[in-house]
C-alpha cells in the first residue's frame, strides 16, 4: 500500500511538472523590428511593427508554439520605402503574414514559475515568409515574462528579391528582433 501511495504521488507530481503552461501576449503588445543595411554608405534601415500575436506553451523544458504578425504593419519611417517594401518585395497582398513556429526553444526548469531564464539561450524555428518556409536560428532571453529574440534571415532564402533603390542595394541578410511580453493564460 505504501509503495502504491509513493508511486501515485510521484506520478502526480510528474504530471504537474510536465503540464503545459499556455502563454500569450496581450493584444497589441510586443514588437517586431528588423535592421537591414544598404550599400554603399552602410545606410541603416530600421523597420518595426507592433502587435505580434503569440500562442505559446511552456512544457517539458521547452517553449512551443508560434508567433505571427501582419507584415502590413511594418514601418520604416519613410512612406515611399514602406510602399516599395510591401508591394514590390514582401508582396503583402499575396503573403500578408509572417509566422515563426518554434522547433527547439529550451527553457530553464524554473521558467514556468516566473517566465524567466537565467541566461541567453539558443533557439531554432521555422519561419514562414513570402510563401516559403525555412528554418531559422537565433538566441533569446526571457526575464519576468518579457521574451526578446533575435535571429538573422536571408532574403533570397524566402524568394524575396534583394531590394534596390536609387543606387542603394540592401544586403541579403536582415537581422530580426522580436519582443514579446508574455503572461500565463
Amino acid at each position, binding site marked *: 500500500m505504501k509503495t502504491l501511495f509513493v508511486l501515485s504521488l510521484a506520478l502526480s507530481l510528474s504530471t504537474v511538472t510536465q503540464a503545459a503552461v499556455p502563454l500569450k501576449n496581450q493584444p497589441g503588445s510586443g514588437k517586431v523590428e528588423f*535592421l537591414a*543595411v*544598404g*550599400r*554603399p*554608405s*552602410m*545606410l*541603416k*534601415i*530600421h523597420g518595426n511593427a507592433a502587435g505580434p500575436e503569440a500562442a505559446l506553451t511552456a512544457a517539458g523544458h521547452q517553449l512551443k508554439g508560434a508567433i505571427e504578425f501582419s507584415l502590413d504593419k511594418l514601418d520604416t*519611417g*519613410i*512612406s*515611399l*520605402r514602406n510602399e516599395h517594401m510591401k508591394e514590390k518585395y514582401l508582396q503583402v497582398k499575396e503573403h500578408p503574414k509572417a509566422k515563426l513556429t518554434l522547433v527547439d526553444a529550451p527553457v530553464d526548469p524554473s521558467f514556468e514559475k516566473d517566465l524567466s531564464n537565467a541566461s541567453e539561450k539558443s533557439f531554432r524555428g521555422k519561419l514562414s515568409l513570402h510563401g516559403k518556409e525555412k528554418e531559422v536560428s537565433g538566441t533569446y532571453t526571457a526575464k519576468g515574462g518579457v521574451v526578446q529574440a533575435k535571429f538573422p534571415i536571408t532574403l533570397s532564402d524566402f524568394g524575396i528579391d534583394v531590394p534596390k*533603390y*536609387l*543606387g*542603394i542595394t540592401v544586403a541579403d541578410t536582415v537581422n530580426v528582433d522580436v519582443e514579446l511580453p508574455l503572461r500565463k493564460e
Partner: protein
Amino acid sequence: MRLLFSALLLSFSAPAFAFPEMVRHHYVNCNACHVNPSGGGLLTEYGRGMSGEVLSTWHYENESLFLHGALKPEKLPSFLNVGGDVRAVQVHRESRQVREGRYILMQTALEGAATVGPVSAVASYFAPDRKNHVHGELGRFYLLGNVTDAFQLKAGRFLPAFGIADPHHILSTRQSLGFGYGSNRDAAEAHYSGEQWHGALGVSRSRLDSALRQKEESVSFQLEKFFSDSYRVGVSAWRGETEQMRRWLWSLHGILGFTEHSYLLSETTWQNRQSKTPGSAWEMGIFHFSRVGYEFFQGFHLTALGDISETNISQPDSLTVMAGGGPIWYPRPHLEFELVFTQRKILRQSREWEDYAYLMLHYYL
C-alpha cells in the same frame, strides 16, 4: 565697417552644405546622400530621392531630380551627375552704436561628377565675389576612388574632414579655425565609411589665395563611432604648420538623433598654436557650438543655437558669445529657408550685446 561686412561675408559664404542631423533617420554616413564622403555638395541619386521623401514638407514625383525633373535622368548620360547651389542671405545687425543690413550672395556653384567604374571626377564652377557678382572660378574639385563599398580615396582641392561638416560657417568651429569660406585646400584623404565607424586620414596644404592667406601644411585625422544607428560621436585631430606658426587642433563632437524629430549637434575644439618666433609661448583657444532642433512637421524645424569661443584663453577680451535660434523650413525639394535671431557679444568690439539676425535662402538645382 567694410571690414565688418567682409568678415560677415566670409562667415556666411558656404562652399558646401550638408545636413548632419539626418543621422536621426539612421543616415550615419554622409555618402548615402552626397557624392562627397565628408558630406555637402553634389547629391547622389538616393540623396535626391530623400530630399523629397524625408527632408521636404511637400513634393511631387521626380520633383527632387535635377531641374525639378524637367530634364529626365535618362536624357543625361548615365555617367554624369549634375547639381548646383545658389545661397543668399540678408543680414541684420543692431546695437546702440549701429543698425545695418546687407544682402550677401554667398554661393553660386554649378557642380558635376563624371563616374567611370569606381572613379568619379567632381568639380564645381562659378562663385560670387564680395560685390555679389558671379564669375567663373573652379571651387572644389577632386578625384574620388571607391576602393571598396566602405573604403574611398580622394585627391584634389577640398576641405579635409574635421569636426562636424556643418553648413553654418558662422559657427566658431568653422570660420574661426579656417574651415569656412574659401578654405578648400590641395588635399588627399582616405575615408572608411563602415557600419559602426567612420574614419578619415588626410594631408593638405592651404593656398595663399585662400581665406587663410597662408600656406599651411597639415595632417588631419577623424574617427567617429555610431551608436544605436542614430548617434554619431567623434574625435578629430589636426596638426598644421605655416612659415610663421604651428598649431594643434583637437575636437570632440556629437551628432545625436534622439528621435526621428529631435536632435543635437555639438562640437568643442581646442586650438594650441605657437608663433615660430623664438621664445613664443603656446596660445590655447576654445571654440564650441551646440544646436538643438525639433522637427514639428516634415520639413519644418525650430532650432536653438549656442556658440562660444575664446581664441586665446589668456586674453579675456578674445571671448565671443552668441545665443539664439529660429526656424528652418524645407518646403519643397530644392528650397531651404532659415531665419535666425541671436544675441551676440564680441568683447573685442564691445561689452554690450547686439542683435544679430539673418534670413537665408538656399536653392539647389
